[in-house]
């Protein structure tokens, strides 16, 4: 009970500073300790109504596209749209303070392999540092670089590369 009260208070404070009325959930999510029975894993086909906190699906349902932030070519700075997405993430992680997660850093294919591994790590850390600045405890966040090894968009086009230059937050189950 104490926990959900804290969560609610945190939400209010984040909203107050981040002008996020549009992003405020219309109904409060269930408290972190809900049914222990058969929580669907993220690999199960989307059944949005039953995904509980602690699942990637629940996280995605809560923040939408904001689980991922995108970067310009060879850059790792957090721009205004990244900042908005990371604020939505910070809000979510404030709501569920027991959750830990990994920020996965990725690059497009137009770079050399080793440099891209380092660049992905840099992007993951940029996102992590921004989340920490928003109040998410650093010890809840691990970083992991895949460089150019795990593209989501498969074409060799500017559009595909833009989708692959990303830092994706993934819950640790």
């Amino acid at each position, binding site marked *: 009970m104490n926990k959900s009260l804290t969560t609610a208070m945190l939400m209010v404070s984040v909203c107050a500073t981040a002008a996020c009325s549009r992003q405020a959930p219309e109904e409060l999510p269930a408290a972190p300790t809900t049914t222990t029975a058969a929580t669907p894993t993220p690999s199960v086909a989307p059944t949005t109504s039953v995904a509980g906190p602690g699942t990637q699906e629940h996280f995605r349902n809560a923040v939408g596209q904001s689980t991922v932030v995108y970067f310009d070519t*060879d850059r*790792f700075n957090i721009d205004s749209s990244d900042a908005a997405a990371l604020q939505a993430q910070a809000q979510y992680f404030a709501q569920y303070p027991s959750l830990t997660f990994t920020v996965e850093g990725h690059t497009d*294919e*137009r*770079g*050399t*392999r*080793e*440099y891209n*591994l*380092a*660049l992905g*790590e*840099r992007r*993951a*850390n*940029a996102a992590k*540092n921004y989340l920490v600045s928003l109040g998410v405890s650093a010890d809840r966040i691990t*970083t*992991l*670089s895949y*460089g150019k*090894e*795990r*593209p*989501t968009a*498969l*074409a*060799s086009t500017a559009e595909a590369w833009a989708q692959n230059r990303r830092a994706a937050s993934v819950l640790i189950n």
Partner: protein
Amino acid sequence: MKSTMKFSRLAIALVSASISYSALAQNTDLGEPVAEGGDVEAADVAGSDEEDDGGLVFTVTDDTDYSDVGIAIPAFATDRDQPTPANSGGTGALGQEVARVITANLRNNGLFKPTGPDSLPSPRFQQITAPSWSTWGSRGAEMLVQGYVTARADGKLVVGCYLYDVALQDELIRDGWVVRPADWRRAAHKCSDLIYARLTGESPFFDSRIAYIAETGPKDNRVKRLAVMDSDGANHRFLTLGSATALTPRYSPDYSKILYLSYVDGNPRIYVYDIGRGSQTLVTENKSPTLAPRWSPDGQHILFSMAVNGNTDIYRVPVTGGRITRLTDTPGIDIGGSYSPDGSKIVFESDRSGTQQCYVMNADGSNQRRITFFGGRCATPEWSPRGDQIAFTRIAGDFNVAVMSPNGRNLRVLTNGWQDEAPTWAPNGRIIQFFRTSRNSGKSNLWQVDLTGQNERRLPTPVDASDPAWGPIRP
């Protein structure tokens, strides 16, 4: 070796439970250990009566001169056809195979115009040291390679190799080797090296191996396995199973170990894989990602990059473990170091100026200076084993393999693919391998090109391939 074991025993003693568990866990992606080949011993070979004058037959100014030289390579003879584990057809059939391997070596590398045993008469054993000059003269061959294969009582094979100048009717050079039957191809490579070195004046390179990454599966979920093969693609082995992504291997100078990056514990980390034992250890116990492993030329140190809080620098650690030394400390990504052959300098890439450029520093990290100013970007620099050139990935629109002098001057672009990446040098510094990625499909293959940029060819591999790393010449 001894001190490595001592070190790991010490580590186990210190943190018994966690280390021994992780030691098991980090081996989960490894295949069965590979039986390594035996030594190649020198063998005395009988010669013809002529003395070897030791001089070059003609002056080599560039690769196009000797690429027109016709070389006849008939089947190697045997004194009597004996069974051998190396060939179900016995030593006679093996002699044919040896000549085929030599022919393929010389042809595939754009060197000379070899004619192989399948379209030539087979000399008798007695003719190996006394060639039938009239036969070869009438065929228009300028050079003649003859040899023999015999089985010793202990089962080992003796392979003799002779190079003759047909016009001069003169023996130019000869040599011989004793090998285990399983290593018969090494004798063919040694013979190829003897011919190549004698005719070009260059150092040998055929008797060497290549570590690389074998790739299968869709572009968004590639399976990447550590693999090794001979310089001609034979004796191919997968060393990891593919459950963990493996990247960027490097053979140790003595071929006993391979440094590579694996995600076996979920994170990118460099491991030292011991080929004979079939097990691996972390290059350094650390929470941070370790990347871009390289050996020092003497095999005593490992150069690597480590990303701490997103900032990547280059470090050095003794191969036996122990304290790591940080060599760069600028904000940004410093990665991909490569030692000069004398071990005194390191070329590496850094984006400290805003984009990837190549820099040279002393081996202790002092005197760091940028060497590339050509307008594009410089990545993955690799110092030639001869010391006279640095190969790198030139990024200027497309990705190409290029070479330059160690001071950054005399840049020459050797390839023109859409994405040619990660050059690695042949042991003699005359040929470069790299991998070429196809646009859209993302499929990659190994290619090689010589320093003229003219002789470019794809290396056959069982599946797609990337990250080639050419090892040194074998003793």
